[in-house]
């Protein structure tokens, strides 16, 4: 088998186009694969003022005109975008110096392009399932949801291996599509550890003063204000926490529950203690996470829980609900605190414990930061991914397609 390996990644988002978590995931994965000697071509949707072809940190990025077809609805747009992406990808795959060895799709949004390219070039297809329709919607209720679910099933069927970012997702995806266990692989999502330099202390104090009074501890929530993220549980826990510690709750993010939450907070007379900041730019958010005395992730449903990792990577201690991917990320009493999901008493207990016990807080903060560097390091994730590519190509070399 040849040492040289060329991958074509298909993703509907890649920086500067950022819609959700797939964009940074594909960016860091591709970049780190290049660093360990793999040739990577990313084919993605276009974005205003981003060039149709460029090389970023060694990654070849190809952007496809994806809004030229009028579309009656989002799902039809996705399939039409795939038509254009596939056509252009075929052209690129034909022209690149090194033949493509593996196609790698991310989610159903690039399902049909990946499936088509697999058959046309007769190369293995891999897929990373970041989420599922049945999980997002908690069941399949409409014709569109069924169609997307079946497209996901088809994609996982056509894929040589299905990569998931947590053990929870491995079992969920296996259940949702009836996949054999040996087809599923767990490779975690990565996160970039933030530098902990002391010179930033002054900036931190400035940031802190913008959001809280000097004698207030900062309790931080970052996430969409939707039911499954559990922000309402934090609001309910607030009075119990305030009985013991003087703190400021900062809620970052938007969502359909915002107004309702605002009204509740006012009726509880807590509008001076709970601050809804709305969306915050990434730079500012990173600084704010560094200032936080505790970061809270009270989700009810969480396939992975990147927000907990990001908090840990910035050196903030975390309190999370014991569910989904969060259960795996945090070791209770060691890298964070796990509390009962959907239970304000339990959440209040966890937050209070972290805020009052300085030694405990320092311990979990340091352990978490260490674990981030060990397990969720992009370089390691790239190496694991390369191993999967190699083992798939080893199996492929014995197939009649080779």
């Amino acid at each position, binding site marked *: 088998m040849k040492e040289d390996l060329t991958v074509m990644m298909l993703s509907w988002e890649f920086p500067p186009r950022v819609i959700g978590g797939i964009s940074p995931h594909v960016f860091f994965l591709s970049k780190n694969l290049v660093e360990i000697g793999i040739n990577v071509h990313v084919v993605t949707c276009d974005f205003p003022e981003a060039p149709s072809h460029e090389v970023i940190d060694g990654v070849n990025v190809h952007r496809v005109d994806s809004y030229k077809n009028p579309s*009656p609805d989002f*799902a039809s747009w996705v399939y039409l975008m795939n*038509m254009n992406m596939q056509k252009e990808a075929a052209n690129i795959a*034909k022209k690149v110096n090194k033949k493509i060895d593996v196609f790698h799709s991310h989610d159903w949004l690039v399902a049909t392009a990946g499936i*088509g390219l697999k058959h046309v070039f007769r190369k293995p297809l891999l897929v990373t399932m970041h989420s599922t329709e049945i999980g997002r919607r908690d069941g399949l209720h409409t*014709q569109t949801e*069924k169609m997307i679910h079946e497209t996901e099933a088809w994609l996982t069927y056509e894929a040589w291996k299905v990569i998931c970012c947590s053990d929870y997702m491995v079992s969920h995806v296996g259940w949702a599509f009836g996949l054999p266990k040996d087809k599923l692989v767990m490779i975690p999502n990565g996160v970039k550890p933030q530098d902990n330099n002391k010179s930033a202390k002054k900036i931190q104090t400035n940031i802190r003063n913008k959001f809280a009074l000097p004698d207030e501890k900062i309790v931080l929530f970052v996430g969409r204000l939707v039911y499954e993220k559990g922000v309402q549980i934090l609001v309910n826990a607030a009075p119990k926490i305030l009985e013991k510690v003087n703190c400021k709750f900062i809620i970052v993010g938007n969502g359909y529950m915002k107004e309702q939450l605002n009204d509740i907070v006012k009726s509880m007379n807590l509008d001076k203690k709970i601050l809804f900041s709305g969306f915050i730019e990434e730079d500012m958010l990173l600084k704010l996470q560094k200032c936080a005395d505790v970061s809270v992730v009270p989700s009810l449903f969480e396939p992975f829980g990147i927000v907990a990792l990001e908090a840990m990577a910035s050196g903030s201690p975390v309190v999370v609900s014991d569910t989904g991917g969060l259960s795996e990320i945090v070791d209770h009493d060691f890298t964070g605190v796990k509390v009962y999901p959907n239970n304000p008493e339990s959440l209040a207990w966890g937050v209070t414990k972290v805020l009052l016990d300085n030694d405990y807080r320092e311990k979990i903060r340091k352990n978490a930061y260490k674990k981030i560097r060990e397990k969720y390091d992009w370089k390691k994730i790239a190496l694991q991914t390369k191993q999967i590519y190699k083992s798939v190509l080893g199996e492929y070399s014995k197939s009649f397609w080779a």
Partner: protein
Amino acid sequence: MQVLIFSWEYPPRKIGQLAEYIDSLSKELVKNGINTNIITYHDFLTGTFEEKSGLKIVRISNPVRSHISFLTWILTLNQEIERAAANIIYQQKKKIELINVYDWHFIPAALTLKNAFEIPILYSIESLEDYRSQKSSQPYNMAIKSIERLGCYESDRISVKSEAIKEAIMNSYDVSEKKIEVFGLDLSSNFKGIKNLLNTIKRRKK
């Protein structure tokens, strides 16, 4: 010489006149020594593969059963068209000289195959979305029209059966007159048109 024909109807599946026409045309091609493969939709009236007097017919179905429109059904069906076409291309030693695609349905597959294998495309337009939808400008119809436009733009040749439809294509999709050939209505002139095209492709290769 080898040809791939993509059509969403073929006997026993008859929706309009196209099925019968493809049937007669493919017989004529085979009779004249042109190796012909038809890829069409499998609606369980027959088996998935059939070979009769030199003509090969592959029928494919859609792995996604729930759909919100005819458009999403067609767009997902295209990957199976590609799979079937790729199977034929990889199995045969001789190169496919031409892909002849009928109407917009399998244009997406044809264009990917063209890019991957450098096979010329003949886009035979029987009807246009403007005729079917009374020039509707609803997003659904506009989406189909955008596929017709893409087909006109990226195919190597367009064939039609009348001057009227040629005129309509030129006006709707800004296609140059030189790209469109009027093969006429009868079978023998259509056969001749394809035969001439194949000869041109062959000469150009040499």
